[in-house]
C-alpha cells in the first residue's frame, strides 16, 4: 500500500462530500464503461515498500559487472570516465535545481536561469561561437537539430556527414531524416581522415565533421571547412568539448554550427543517459536556434534578471512552424556542466585535456609495441585511439574484463557491421580512451592484460 499521498481517508471522504460524490470511482463516471479497466486487469504487481524495492534494485546492480568498482574504464566512444568531484555532485543535486520545472516564471526561477546563462556562456566559449542554447537531449540529437537548421537555412536537403562522426549519431541522423526527407550522404574515411573528394555532390545544406572523430583522429579541419564553402553548405562541427581545452575551437575553424556531447562535464557514465547535447551557432543563425535560450534583461526595479527569450522560435508559440519540437531538454545536466566547468576553471579544463592525451599517448605507445596490436591509422589523435587486433575485439574485451579492465569498445559494436569509417573489417578494431583519471599502474595492468588477451 505504499504511495506518497497525504490524504487521510477522512479527508478523501470530506472532499468527495464537497463534490457531492459517493466514491472516488464517481470521479470517473463520465468515462465510457466499455473501456474502463477492470480491477487487476493490468497484471501489474502489487506495490511494495521502498526498502523492498531497494532490494530488487540491488539484484539489478549485482547482475551488472561493469560498474566503476568492478572494471577500470578505458571505454570512450562518446561516454567518458572523467572526474566528477563530490562538490559538483552535491551542488548539482540541490533540490531547488532538481525539482523545478522549466523556468516559465522568471521571478522565481533566477537560480536555474542564471545557471543556464552561465552554461550558455561556457558553451559559447568552448565552441568559439557567439550563441549557445540551453541544452538539447544529447550529442546525437543535437546533430539532428543542426541538420534541420542547415536545411531550413539553405533550403537544401543534402547532408554530407563524415563517416568519422560517431556511428550512433549517424544512425540517429538517418532515423530522423525519414521525417525531414534529408538525403544523408556519408563520406568515408581514408586512414582515419574524411575523404571529402570521394563524394560527388554539387551542393549541400551541411558538411559535418567530427573533431576529433570517433576513431580519435584530428581531422583536416581547414579542408573540411573549404569543402563546406565550396558546396555552399553550413559547416557543422561535432566537437568533443574536452578537446577544446587544448584544440582550436569549432569557431576558430569557421564553423557555422557546433554540436557536442556534454557528458564529460560532470555527468556520470549513467549507462548512456541522461547526457547533454551542446549546441552553438554563428550569429546569423540565432533565430533558427532550436530549443531554449536564456537572455539577460532587467526587472521593473532595474535590477539584472534572466529570462528565456526569443521564444517565438519555439513550439509552444510557433507550433508547426517552430525551429524544433524540443520542449523538455537536459537543463539539470547543463547546470551540472556549468558547475563542473566552474570547478575545473581555465587551468583545470586544459589539464584534463592534456592529462587525458598524455595517458592516451603513453598507452598507445605501449600497446602498439605488443605483437598483434597495430595502429589502425597514422593520423594524430588526442585522448582516444583505434588499434587493429590480431583477434576479434569483442573477444579481447571479454578476456580483459576478467582482469578487471574495460578495454575499450569494438568498432563493430558501434557500427554494427562494415562501415565507411573503417577500410577493413571493424570487428578487430578496438577503440581505446584514456581520461585524466587513469594511472600509470592501470596502464601497466592494461598492457599486461592485452598482451595475454591478443595472444
Amino acid at each position, binding site marked *: 500500500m505504499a504511495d*506518497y499521498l497525504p490524504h487521510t481517508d477522512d479527508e478523501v471522504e470530506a472532499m468527495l462530500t464537497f*463534490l457531492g460524490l459517493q466514491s472516488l470511482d464517481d470521479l470517473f463516471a*463520465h*468515462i465510457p464503461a466499455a*473501456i474502463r*479497466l477492470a480491477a487487476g486487469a*493490468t497484471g501489474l*504487481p502489487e506495490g511494495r515498500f521502498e526498502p523492498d524495492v531497494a532490494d530488487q534494485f*540491488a539484484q*539489478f546492480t549485482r*547482475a*551488472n*559487472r*561493469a560498474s566503476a568498482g568492478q*572494471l577500470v574504464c578505458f571505454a570512450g566512444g562518446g561516454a567518458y570516465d572523467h572526474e566528477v568531484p563530490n*562538490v559538483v555532485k552535491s551542488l548539482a543535486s*540541490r533540490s531547488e535545481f532538481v*525539482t523545478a520545472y*522549466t*523556468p516559465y*516564471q522568471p521571478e522565481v526561477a533566477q537560480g536555474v536561469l542564471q545557471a543556464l546563462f552561465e552554461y550558455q556562456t561556457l558553451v*559559447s566559449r568552448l565552441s568559439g561561437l557567439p550563441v549557445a542554447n540551453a541544452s538539447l*537531449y*544529447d550529442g*546525437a540529437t543535437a546533430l539532428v537539430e543542426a541538420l534541420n537548421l542547415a536545411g531550413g537555412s539553405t533550403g537544401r536537403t543534402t547532408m554530407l556527414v563524415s563517416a568519422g562522426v*560517431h556511428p550512433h549519431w549517424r*544512425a*540517429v541522423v*538517418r532515423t*530522423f531524416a525519414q*521525417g*525531414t526527407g534529408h538525403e544523408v550522404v556519408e563520406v568515408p574515411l581514408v586512414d582515419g581522415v574524411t575523404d571529402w573528394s570521394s563524394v560527388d555532390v554539387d551542393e549541400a545544406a551541411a558538411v559535418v565533421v567530427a573533431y576529433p572523430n570517433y576513431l580519435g583522429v584530428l581531422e583536416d579541419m581547414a579542408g573540411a571547412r573549404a569543402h563546406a564553402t565550396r558546396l555552399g553548405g553550413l559547416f557543422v562541427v561535432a566537437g568533443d568539448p574536452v578537446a577544446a581545452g587544448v584544440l582550436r575551437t569549432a569557431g576558430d575553424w569557421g564553423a557555422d554550427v557546433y554540436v557536442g556531447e556534454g557528458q564529460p562535464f560532470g555527468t556520470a*557514465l*549513467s*549507462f*548512456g543517459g541522461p547526457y547533454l547535447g551542446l549546441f552553438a551557432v554563428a550569429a546569423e543563425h540565432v533565430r533558427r536556434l532550436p530549443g531554449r*535560450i*536564456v537572455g*539577460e534583461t*532587467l526587472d521593473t526595479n532595474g*535590477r539584472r534578471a534572466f529570462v528565456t*527569450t526569443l521564444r517565438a522560435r519555439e513550439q*509552444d508559440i510557433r507550433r*508547426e512552424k517552430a525551429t524544433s*519540437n*524540443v520542449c523538455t531538454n537536459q*537543463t*539539470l545536466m547543463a*547546470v551540472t556542466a556549468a558547475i563542473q566547468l566552474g570547478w*575545473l576553471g581555465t*587551468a583545470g579544463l586544459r*589539464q584534463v585535456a*592534456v592529462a587525458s*592525451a*598524455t*595517458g592516451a599517448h603513453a598507452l598507445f605507445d605501449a600497446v602498439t609495441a605488443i605483437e598483434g596490436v597495430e595502429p589502425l591509422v597514422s593520423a*594524430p589523435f588526442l585522448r582516444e585511439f583505434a588499434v587493429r587486433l590480431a583477434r576479434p575485439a569483442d573477444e579481447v*574485451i571479454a578476456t580483459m574484463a576478467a582482469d578487471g579492465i574495460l578495454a575499450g569498445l569494438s568498432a563493430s559494436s558501434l557500427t554494427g557491421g562494415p562501415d565507411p569509417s573503417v577500410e577493413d573489417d571493424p570487428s578487430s578494431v578496438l577503440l581505446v580512451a584514456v581520461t*585524466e583519471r587513469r594511472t*600509470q599502474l592501470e596502464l601497466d595492468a592494461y598492457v599486461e592484460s592485452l598482451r595475454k588477451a591478443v595472444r
Partner: protein
Amino acid sequence: MMTAAQPGGRAASIPLMGHEIEPTMFELSVRGRSAAQLRTTGIAPRAIESMVPASHLNPEPLVTADLAERDLVGHVTRLTHRQFSVDLGAYPLGSCTMKYNPKFCDAIAADPGLASVHPGAPVAMVQGWLELLVTLEERLCAITGMAAATLQPAAGAAGELTGLLLMRAFHHANGDERRRVIIPDSSHGTNPASVTLGGYQVTTVPSNERGLVDLDALRAALGPDVAGIMLTNPNTVGLFEEQIVEIAEAVHDVGGLLYYDGANLNAILGVVRPGDMGFDIVHMNLHKTFATPHGGGGPGAGPVAVSSRLEQFLPGPRATRVDGRYEWVTPKSSIGRVHGWHGNALVLARALAYIEVHGAAGLERVAQHAVLNANWLRRRLADTLPAAYERPCMHECVLTATAVKSAHGVRGLDIAKALLDEGFHAPTVYFPLIVDEALMFEPTETESPQTLEALAVAVESIVARAATDPESLHRAPSHTPVSRVDEARAARHLIATEDDAER
C-alpha cells in the same frame, strides 16, 4: 590592489538577506584561482605539442571562469536560494504534473552500480541494466495497454517524433504514403512541431463548446491521406474525450493511426488505458506521471509504446529477454536509433522504482487523488474564477480570468504573478490557446487538502484585490528575488552570454 572581480562571499544576493543580485561566475572569476583537484596519475608528463600538431592547438588558453571551491559553492548555493521548486512549495503548473519526486528514486539513480556503468560495456557485464529496462518496458506496456515499447526517446517531444516516424514506417510498409496528421486546436505545441518534423502536414480540428474534439469536424477532416491523429486524453483542458471510442473508429476507418500524447497519463493510471481506448502509439512523460524530477527543464524520458502491429518498427536496439538472458535486439523493420545510446537510462531507473513502489493499486490511487484534488479546487474556486468548461475535470482544471479582466483590467498573468508573492508557483497561463485568459491549475495528487485550501484562499484574496487595488497586481510580484521581468527587452537586445553583456 584587488582585481575587479566581484566579492563572492556574502549572501546579500540571497533573498534571505535582501534583494541583491548574484554575480555571474565570470564576475566572480579571478585568473589564477582554481578549485580543480585531479588525480596524481604517475604517468610521465608530455608536452601537448609533442602529441598534437601545432596547427590544431589553440594558441591561447580557453578562458572559462576561475573560482576557488569556496566561492563556487557560495555562488551556486545562493543561486538555489533564488529558485522555486516542488520541494519548497506547491507547483500547480498545469500540464506539467509537478508532483513530489520521491527521494528514494534519486537514491536508486545515484547508486554507482547503475550510474557508473559505461553504455557500451559488453552485454554480459550489464545484465542487470538490461533486466531493469525490460522490466520497465513490461510495466509501461501493462500501464498503457500496449504490446511493446522503446525507452530511447529523451522526452515527450522526442517520443512524439518517434511515434510519427513509426506511423510513417507503418504506412510505408503498407505501400501507403499519407500526407496529413490531425491534431485538435487545444493540443500542445510540441504536437504540431513534431508533425512537421515527421514529414507530415498539420490539419487542425476545432474543439466544441464542451472543450472536446468536435466529432463532426473530425470526420470531415478525415480522408485516405490522413496518416493519423494525435490526441491527449484527458485533453489539455483537463477533460476526458468521452467519444474516444468513436474517434478511434473514425480514424481507423480511414486507415489512420491514433497517437496518444501521454503528458496527461497521470489522470487515468489504472482507470482506463490508451490501448483500450484504441490508440496505436503512446508516449509517456516519465518526468510527469512517474515523478522523475524535472531538473529545471530536463532531463525527462519519453518512452513510446505501440500495439503489436507496430512493434517491428520500433527503434533499436532494445533490451530483450532471450532464453533467460538479456540481449540487445533491433526490431526487424526498425526505424533506427533515436538516441545516442539507450535513452535517459537513470531517469528510466527512477521511474521503474516509482512504479514498483506504487504497484497496481498505488498507481490507481495516484490518478484518483489527482482527479479528486483538481475537481475540489475547481469547485472551491467556482465563484472566484470560473472553469472554462463547467464539467467535472480530470487531473487539472482550466479556469478563466475573462470576467476579472473585463471588470478590473486584471489579466490572468497578473493573477499568476501575484500568486508567486503568496508563496505558490503560478498555474500555466494562456495555455491552451483556445481558452481566453486561461489559468490552468494542476494541483497533483501529492498536495494535501490543507495546501489546496490555502491555494484557494490565496487566489480568492488576489481576485478580491483586483477590485480594490488592481495596480498592485499589475506590479506583482514584489516579494520574489526579482520583480516582474522585462521579457520584451531581453528579446529586443539579445544578451545570451557574458561576452554579449560586455560588462
